[in-house]
Structure formats: structure tokens, C-alpha cells
């Protein structure tokens, strides 16, 4: 049996290296972008919690990554392509049976103004 030198991973609560404190109006902007309504009374608490998460995440800023290729796929695999064949059949009835609002085969949404 070998003895392991302890090294702390959990003891610290992520010291803040560079605070990217997010402001309440920024949360409102992000929520608008994500199309999520936040109850006005909740905005403060949501902002606080997200700030905490971002503080934790801000540890990344301390790492020099200038020469490192970003990794989008863990296997660095490349694409296999599909042959150009029609493989799907019309299943409109099944798909629209679970839709909130349809008429004449169309999905309905509140009027879109261009």
C-alpha cells in the first residue's frame, strides 16, 4: 500500500481571483436572451446565486491557455456522413397529436409581426 500525499481539492471555497461580479441588469439582459421571465422579486436572489457560480468559474482565468487548441469532442473524432437518401415518412398526425395548438396542419403561435 502506498501513502498518498494529501492535496486539497475541496477544503477551499474557491478564492476569488478576479471578480466578474454580474449586475442585476445584466442578468435581466441574459434572461431576455434566454427567453426566461424572472419574477421581479426574484431577480436579486438569482443574481446572487449566479454570481457565486461565476466566481467559482472565474478560477479558469488564472490559467494560461494561449497555445492550447480548444477541445469540443473528447475523442477528437471527425464526421461520418449520411448518404443522401429519403428515409423519413410523413408522421404529421402522430407529431401534431402532442402539439399544444395546431390548425390545418400548421403549428399556431401568437401573431408574429415582421
Amino acid at each position: 500500500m502506498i501513502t498518498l500525499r494529501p492535496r486539497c481539492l475541496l477544503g477551499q471555497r474557491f478564492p476569488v481571483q478576479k471578480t466578474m461580479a454580474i449586475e442585476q441588469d445584466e442578468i435581466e439582459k441574459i434572461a431576455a436572451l434566454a427567453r426566461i421571465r424572472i419574477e421581479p422579486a426574484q431577480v436579486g436572489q438569482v443574481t446572487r446565486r449566479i454570481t457565486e457560480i461565476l466566481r467559482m468559474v472565474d478560477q479558469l482565468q488564472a490559467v494560461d491557455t494561449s497555445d492550447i487548441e480548444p477541445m469540443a469532442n473528447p475523442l477528437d473524432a471527425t464526421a461520418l456522413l449520411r448518404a443522401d437518401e429519403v428515409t423519413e415518412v410523413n408522421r404529421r398526425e402522430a407529431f401534431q397529436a402532442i402539439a399544444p395548438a395546431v390548425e390545418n396542419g400548421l403549428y399556431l403561435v401568437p401573431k408574429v409581426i415582421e
Partner: protein
Amino acid sequence: MYDKTVAQLSAGLQAGQFSSVELTRSFLARIAALDGVYNSFISVAGEQALAAAAAADERIAAGTAGPLTGIPLAHKDIFCTDGLRTSCGSRMLDNFVPPYDATLISRFKRDGAVTLGKTNMDEFAMGSSNESSYYGAARNPWDTGAVPGGSSGGSAAAVAALLAPAATGTDTGGSIRQPAAFCGITGLKPTYGRVSRLGMVAFASSLDQAGPMAHTAEDCAWLLNSMAGHDPRDATSAPRAGEDYRAGLEDSLKGLRIGLPREYFGDGLDAATGACIQQALRELEALGATLVEVSLPHSHLTIPTYYVIAPAEASTNLSRYDGVRYGYRCDNPSDLLDLYTRTREEGFGEEVKRRILVGTYALSAGYYDAYYKKAQQIRRLIKQDFMDCFAQVDLLAGPTTPGPAFPLGAKTDDPVAMYLEDIYTLAVNLAGLPGMSVPAGMVEGKPVGMQLIGQHFGEARLLNVGHRFQQATDWHLRRPANLAVEVA
């Protein structure tokens, strides 16, 4: 009948000791009688399960059965099941009955397995305790005041409570391994791309992977045989055929080199849990393995890296839930924007909304390079750490979690504390590696798990080590109290 492994049940079915209908009925009866306590199922298949069992019995009688024919299984409610509600633990999909099967479900159907029902989970698999489920948290059968772990908590609880002999889960940052550890069962997260993601509701596309959860490593091998293999309808599915994961289970561990990442044995690890892991490692040594200390120097960056990449991918994966084509739609939207924003406000729970906002922020103009791109670069460093280890050792071992299951509600008000629960499991997903948790001891009457981390596509080796370990130990045979209820 209900406290048997898949391998034993399969033998019983083939030998005609009981039928699949009888077996299925017995599990359905247990679910009806006991799941009020555990809340491990969101939907129970009932008649559909019995019909599938009857069809399986015919296959067995006709001699065309495979190993899993007639075996009842529980599936995490993240896999789309044709004609059976797939909620993903969310109000958003509470009314969603897919008109199609996930590839994983089709494969089990092809092999004659029976779907008992759909198990509870953290909403959209975002959580480590099952407490973010719209349907309320599942309970840990070892201590109903404790969490079963998450996100595949329902699957782990159902197997631990003997409501299903085995189940499926998904693992984006530990969601199979952590609940398996907390509930005293065996869970395997395969290599990214090993199991098709088609029809599995997406959380974080580059991290999500489905896998088996069962009492034993051997059962996991049986299930993985059905699940694994290339799926041309998932572009990220690995273009290699499945293999027989049962074939190498008995292989000797002599000469096996196991690396112990020193970062996984530090201060954050609960002392009693650490002692259990040390004991388990001695067992592996006794089986012929050599233990080698190794290092994963970027481990301290795992959580921040994960909590950029996973929310970023999730934030856009969840954009499709807009109240237009399926799922929840708010009442009387005044205009299009109101339809979107209220549907998503009301349909998503707090944790899901929080992660969507974090992810949206990380991808937004001006922050992309500082967050998302940076995280993708560090992700490469984290993977490279593992590759460096595998130059010296065959696999890695350590704790699955920092400690045993924590009490319900203990961390719900502190998201960051909850995120820290996944400290030992997240890196495996970032690197796309296979990881497994096997029961390795008890702390305060609750199980703890040992995590084994393999090389890419090294599932067979992990299952082999898990199986040999289980032949030498009995942790996987322990059962919570009060389960031995025979239901008529």
C-alpha cells in the same frame, strides 16, 4: 424472485423456473406496494410491460430468446419511449408522450427486455441529489431521509430497493456513478460515443452518455452488450461494433497496474469513506494488481471547467422547449415573447433556469473567449492529464464521492456546494473516458463506492476488475433493511 441478478433471472427464465409475465408482475406489485416510500418511478408501464413480458415468454418458448429476453428493466425518464410518457423530470415535458423510441430503448426491445417504467431523476439531469425533479426527490433506500444521489437517482433507488433488477441511467458529470455509490449498486458510464444518444433528452451533448446500473458488474456487462454499438443516427456515436463484455469478466488481475490519482485522496475526502477505499484497494492488490501513485495536476480546474461547458451546451439544447410543438405551454400568451418567456419560466425549475442563464452568459458576446473557449482549452489539459497517467497504468481508482449520501435538503440552498459533490466524477466526462462505481464499504449505515476509470473504450477491463472485486467482496450483496416484503 426479486432479489436476484440479471444473470440469475435469465437462467431462471431459460430454465422455465418462472415466466417473464410472473417476473414482471412481481416487480410491478413491488413498485405498487413500496414505491410510495422511495418515489423512484415517475411512470410505471403496467399493461405495456405485461404485454412485452408475454411476447418475451413466447420467444423463450420458441427458443429464439437472447440473454435479456424477458428481463424487466427500469429506464431513466430521459430516454424517449414510444407511447410512454418521457418527462425528463420536468414540468416542461410532464405531458410529453413521444411517438418514437430512443435507440437504446429499441435495442432493449429488440433483445426482448421488458420496460417496467421510467425512473425519477433531477430535472433534465441537472443535479446530484434528485431533488430538482418536478416529481419530488426519490429517497435513498438505505436511509429515506437521505438523497439517492443524482441525476439518475430514481434508477439507483429502484435497483437498491429491489423494484427492478437493473436499470439504465445517464451520466453527464457523475449521474450514474454517484447515485450508484450512494445506493450501494454498480453503475458504469461508458466511453463517450459508445452508447447512442439518439432519443435521449440532451443535457450537455459533448458529455452525456448512457450506461447500465445494476447490482453487479456482471449484470452491467449483460446490459451493455445490448446498449453499445454504432448508431448511424447519432453523429457522435463511435463507428465501432459492440463487443461481448461478458467474455473477459473472469480474466486475472495479475500484473494489472492501477493508478491512484493523489488529488482524489486529499482533504476533501471524508475520512471514513477514504478508509473504505483504501481497504478496497488492498483487495485489488490482493487480486494481483499493482498500485501506483499518479497525478492529475489540473484536477482543481475540473469543476469550473465543467460548470462552463455543461451549462453552455445545456442553455442551447434547452432552447427547443418553447411551447410551440410539444410539451408545456403557458396559458393565454399575449404575444410571441410572452409565450416564450412564460412557458420557460413556468415549465423549467430553478436549477435548470439557473444553468441556462449561466450557459447563456458564458456564450454571450464578450464572454465567449473568457469562458467557453477557455474551458474547452482547459478541457484538453484535463484529458491530457489522464492520457499521461495511462502511459504508466492500465486504469485509475479512487473514491466515487467525497462521502456517503447526504440528508435531503442539506445542499438545496447552496448550488455551489452541490456542484462540489461531483468533484471526482466530472473529469471522466470531460475526458470522455469510461468510469464505473462499485460498492466498496459502508459508512454510518450507508454505502460508499469505489470509482474505476478506464481508457477510452476500455469498458471490458473495468467490468473485469469490478467483477473480480465482487467475487472477493460482498458489499454488492448488502441490502437495505425493510425490503424483504413479499408482495402478493
